[in-house]
């Protein structure tokens, strides 16, 4: 996903001269080509995420579409108020990019796990969350974000995720994307890098992905939910404030709410040392 992201961003920057990339002193062996090709639009802000984010908002207010890039919680929680006040409240075109969504950084530990980021970002009224499930969804999301500039959050896994789509999926906020055919009455619906786990435990059920979602996109969920009797959501995030929680809120008080079964990471993984696969298994995402 990381490689799909930087390849696609570099390609888009060649045709959009307002795209800028600011990194928080991270991105070794990832951002070099962008930096070499577009030195005027690449900035290493240093280890200073609050300034990186305020700075991005300032540049965005002057016509740039700025991408801030860092690991897991650093570009989100560390500078949450800058995202809330400077970017989201002013509806500025800044895309916050976090690499290492979920527990992708494994044994590096809790400081490097993004398992509450949806909760933070989905609380922002104008924010679009882009949580692609494979490299093709990453490219599709990025193209959508560049075509529709605004406050946004792109949550990536790491590198080397498998490709699940055969062609570029058609993405839009709130729109479920079909990934695997199967039984339609009971389905799996995942967001982000949990897509692989959703496919693995589908057991004949159809698998869908929802890579773009937001507060505003809640409105369209009841129609899509109505087509199925049981929807099992999967996310590499804690249940509280997460994706399943979002979907349930979208139809709270209606019969559709009862057909949602959210599966999310158990908080016990927050205290453990283990690799990604093990944390996802112990957390209840995979078997």
């Amino acid at each position, binding site marked *: 996903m990381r490689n799909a992201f930087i390849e696609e961003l570099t390609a888009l920057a060649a045709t959009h001269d307002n795209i800028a990339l600011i990194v928080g002193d991270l991105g070794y062996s990832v951002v070099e080509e962008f930096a070499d090709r577009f030195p005027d639009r690449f900035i290493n802000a240093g280890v200073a995420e609050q300034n990186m984010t305020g700075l991005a*908002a300032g540049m965005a207010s002057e016509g740039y579409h700025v991408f801030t890039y860092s690991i897991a919680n650093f570009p989100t929680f560390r500078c949450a108020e800058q995202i809330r006040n400077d970017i989201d409240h002013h509806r500025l075109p800044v895309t916050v990019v976090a690499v290492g969504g979920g527990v992708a950084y494994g044994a590096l530990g809790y400081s490097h796990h993004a398992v509450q980021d949806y909760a933070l970002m989905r609380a922002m009224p104008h924010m679009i969350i882009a949580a692609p499930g494979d490299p093709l969804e990453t490219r599709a999301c990025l193209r959508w974000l560049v075509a529709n500039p605004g406050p946004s959050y792109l949550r990536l896994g790491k590198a080397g995720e498998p490709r699940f789509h055969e062609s570029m999926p058609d993405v839009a906020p709130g729109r479920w994307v079909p990934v695997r055919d199967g039984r339609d009455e009971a389905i799996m619906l995942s967001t982000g890098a949990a897509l692989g786990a959703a496919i693995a435990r589908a057991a004949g059920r159809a698998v869908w992905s929802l890579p773009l979602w937001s507060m505003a996109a809640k409105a369209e969920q009841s129609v899509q939910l109505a087509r199925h009797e049981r929807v099992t959501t999967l996310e590499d995030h804690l249940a509280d404030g997460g994706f399943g929680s979002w979907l349930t809120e979208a139809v709270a008080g209606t019969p559709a709410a009862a057909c949602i079964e959210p599966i999310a990471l158990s908080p016990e993984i927050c205290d453990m040392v283990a690799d990604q696969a093990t944390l996802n298994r112990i957390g209840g995402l995979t078997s």
Partner: protein
Amino acid sequence: MREAPFVAAKPQDTYLLAQRIREQALRMVTRAKASHVGSALSIADIMAVLYGRALRVDPDAPRHPERDRFILSKGHACVAVYAALAETRFIERASLETYGVNGSILMAHISHKVPGAEFSTGALGHGLPFGTGKALAGKRREASWRTVVLTSDGEWGEGSNWEAALFAAHHNLDNLICILDYNKLQSLKTVDETLRLEPLHSKFEAFGWAVREVDGHDHGALADALEGAPWEAGKPMMLIAHTIKGKGVSFMENKVEWHYRNPTPELLEVALAEIAGANSDA
């Protein structure tokens, strides 16, 4: 030499402008029973010099691409900016009556929805990073406009400001001016008693900024500094403006309580009389 398409309506009598800013600020805060009048009076002279002569801005084209960008980081002092915008025709004077009223655009912390206001603040430590981004954008595009950020003194407790101070110097942003409203009083006690900033001048110099200190109520000194920018090629500018919180109203000067209190109608009349009197003496 850059084009100055905005100078036609200026310069104004900045002392008269400052008087009007103080009067309007006091009236707004009294009507709305709002706080922070001391903070607004502290910057009234700075606002008058900025909007009366130093800033290149045009009320008929508030989003003019070549305008100077002014950002109030101490958003709680917004009545001084709203008053300046009204006195220089960015907004209707009558609209000031809606300050803090339900449905008004005049939020009690500065709002970007107000014509002429670039950026909403209220949480401290946001204006300088944002302004730094604007200044960087201007540099990268070789633009001639400048970015001016007005911060309080207390908000230099925020780490984000120091991050931006490092960044602006590292990137040689000599199109960025930060004015520090140094009234030496913060929310509970003095800056010295709260979280010491001194030695401020040498601290900013050590950060790589060009630093000047002025009496923040001396219009000539403020104008010289602001109009003489850039002071040193490749360096962002820090203008430490020594001010008095509550300046112009004797019973508000240097009093923490006027960070919070709003005047009674009777006290408003006393305050307005003092301000009118001070200007006629000058």
